[in-house]
Every structure is written in C-alpha cells, then in structure tokens.
C-alpha cells in the first residue's frame, strides 16, 4: 500500500472533523484549491469499503458513518428515535415520491385531510421544506424533501428511493385522473 497522499489525508481529516455532511465545494474551502478533492473522495470511498466505517455520498454531500451491518452492536442502549405516526410516514413517502407536491395533492392520495401537526413534524425533523408555490389558482404552497432527508435515510439521491422506478413504470406516481384516461384508452384499444 502506498502512503496516503496529502489530498487524501486532508479530505479524510476534514470530513472526520466535520459536524455535518459536506459538499465538494465546502471541502475545497477547507483543504485548499490545489488538491484534487474528487479523486481523494473516490480513493477514500474505496479504501473504507468493507471496514467498520464507510464514506458515503448523500445528495451531493459526503460524510463518514458506521457500516450498516454493525447496527446491532451500536444500537445497544441508544434510545430509539421517536416513532413517526402512520400519517407522517405516508405523508413523507408521498412528498418524497411525488415532489414537489401541495398539501391538497397529499390529501387526495391519502383520502383524508392532513392534521396540523403532520407536516410540522416532518419539517421539524428537517426532512421536508416548503419549495415555493404552484402557479395555479390559489397558488398553493408546495413541499419537497431536503438533503437531510437523503442523509437520514441513506439515499444517494431521490433516484435511490426504494422501488421508485417500478412505481413510475407502473404509472402509480401519476395522478388518478391521468391513470384513469390511460386505462380507458387501453380498454378502448382492446375492444
């Protein structure tokens, strides 16, 4: 093994000392312009593969974390994070898979109104944020997920959402009206 180069050591130390995941630009701001940070990140990710710690990229930001298969060792005596309500879990899933979505759109899928606290809980957790307004009558606020959401759930990007490709292919992320028209057309074609 060749000794680690300066860029690798610098990036390793910086990410190790960081209190939050860092983008490449943020890392450069610390280690300096002269070093190839991207190459160092790739080399580090490779180096840590299979170890007790791993280097991961979540939403274009990098951080070290413990290997997932060691969860059983580390979970001991750590208090389980407060459990999300079913409404909150569903609302989060709908926002993540459909983003950006308005509250009315979430409610249309769930068939019930969102209670006051549900979105608050998700925003307080830092997983959901308002993402502007939809340019339709009433200009409703729309919501999207955050980088912290990707980090928490171990997703490199929204493309890594479990099953999102299958859901898309099955048309299950399309609105009911759209799917309905599709089905009618299919039915008409069959006849």
């Amino acid at each position, binding site marked *: 093994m060749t000794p680690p180069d300066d860029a690798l050591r610098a990036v390793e130390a910086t990410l190790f000392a960081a209190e939050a995941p860092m983008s490449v630009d943020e890392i450069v701001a610390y280690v300096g312009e002269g070093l190839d940070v991207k190459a160092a990140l790739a080399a580090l990710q490779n180096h840590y593969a299979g170890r007790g710690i791993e280097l991961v990229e979540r939403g274009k930001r990098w951080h070290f974390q413990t290997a997932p298969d060691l969860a059983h060792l580390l979970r001991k005596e750590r208090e389980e994070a407060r459990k999300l309500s079913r409404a909150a*879990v*569903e609302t989060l899933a709908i926002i*993540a898979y459909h983003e950006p979505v308005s509250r009315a759109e979430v409610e249309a899928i769930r*068939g019930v109104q969102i209670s006051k606290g549900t979105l608050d809980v998700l925003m307080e957790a830092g997983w959901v944020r308002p993402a502007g307004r939809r340019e339709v009558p009433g200009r409703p606020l729309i919501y999207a997920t955050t980088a912290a959401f990707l980090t928490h*759930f171990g997703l490199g990007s929204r493309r890594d959402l479990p*099953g999102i490709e299958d859901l898309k292919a099955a048309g299950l992320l399309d609105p009911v009206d759209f799917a309905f028209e599709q089905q009618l057309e299919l039915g008409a074609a069959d006849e």
Partner: protein
Amino acid sequence: MDEGDLFSPASNEGRLTLDLDGWEGPLDLLLNLARSQKVDLARISILALVEQYLTFIAEAKELKLEIAADYLVMAAWLAYLKSCLLLPKDPQQDPSPEELALRLQLRLQRLDAMREAGARLMARDRLGRDVFARAAPEGLRVVRKAAWQAELYDLIAAYGAVRARAEPAFHVVSRRPVMTLDEALHRVEQLLGASIEWTAIEAFLPATQDGEYRKSALASSFLAALELAKQGRLELDQKAPFAPLFVRAA
C-alpha cells in the same frame, strides 16, 4: 417483512375488529378490507369490497359505535355504486359504474403504493438509528479575519480635518454698509429745511450704486420721517398703499 403485519392492525382470521379509531378515514379502511382479499389490488372484486365495507359499517352500527360522517358518506356512495353495478347496464349513464369502480381501484392502488413506500423508507438503514456519524466531531471552524479598508483619500482628508480642527478659529462678523437712524435723522432734518414743497422721500437718499446701502438708507430715512412727523416738524402724504411717499416741512 410481512406486509400483513404492518398494515392490518385489525385483520384477524379474516375478521375485522371494530375499532374505527384505528383507521385514517374511509379510504384507509377500504384499503385494508381490499388487502384481506389477498389478491393483487389490480384484480380485486370491487363488488366484494363494497359488500365488506357495508357489512363492516352495519356491524359497527349494531354495536352502537359512533361512526364519523365521512364513513357514512362513503357507505352511501358504495351502496349506490353496488346497485349500479348490479342493475342492467344503462348506456346513457355517465360516468358508468365501471368507471366509478375503476377510479376507486386506482385510488386504492396509489394509497397502497405510498403506504408500502413509506414502510420501505422507514426500514432503511437510518442515520442515528442503524448507522452513526461521529458523536463528538472536533468540528470545523471559520476564523473571521478583517480585511481593513481605507483609501488614500480617506487618509489625507482625515489629516486635513485634524489640522483644520487644530487651527485657531476666528469669528468675524463682516461689515455691512448701513445708514444708522441718527444719521438718517440728521440728513432728513437738514434736507427738509431747504424744501417746503412736497418732495418724494427718495430725494433724501444719498447717491449710491450699492443696493444694500440704499435699502438701509431708505428704511432709516422712513423711520426718521416718522419720528420728525411725531415731533410735528414734518408732514407725510401718500395717495394709496405703496404709492410714492411725500414729505414737507410742517
């Protein structure tokens, strides 16, 4: 993970416990009933589902449970759908009962998809629960350093200001040419002795190019004329406001 564990809080040997508090609205209840058919949601029997729902609500009523209005609205709608589906087809009916059933099915599929997605999301290796970041990172610091700004102009202007402050300051009231009242009295008295005819007051003013001095002389001469009139030594005459003012010896 068995989906049944996650999402059928009430299914037990195919029977549903009548706990309406556990449901998040009629669609939620319908979805759980649909899942109890144990077939793909794309192939469920809507008619059977309607039957299940109506039975559930009927049982709840029998037990005198309080049923929220939206469950009853859904029950009424489903009863209507059921009768439409059972009656001979009416080609004029728009939307057709089949279309209504399809819409319901699409909605159930979508809710089901999101419910499953949520479960899969929650089951991931989550930071702080399954994987851990450093609990006590050293932290990165930003040291703010001031880059002081000043221009040469600021510098020399400041020096100018300091020096100007240090210079002794003289306060001089500039001299303005005026004719005092005494002077005017003297002039008018003298000039008046020479003329007994009405004379415009301007005739008493000294010849000057200085507008300011002329104004001062006019004002003082007017005051002198008033004073002399008061003493009975002079008469004043003016035909109209702002008309020329005439004087003569009394």
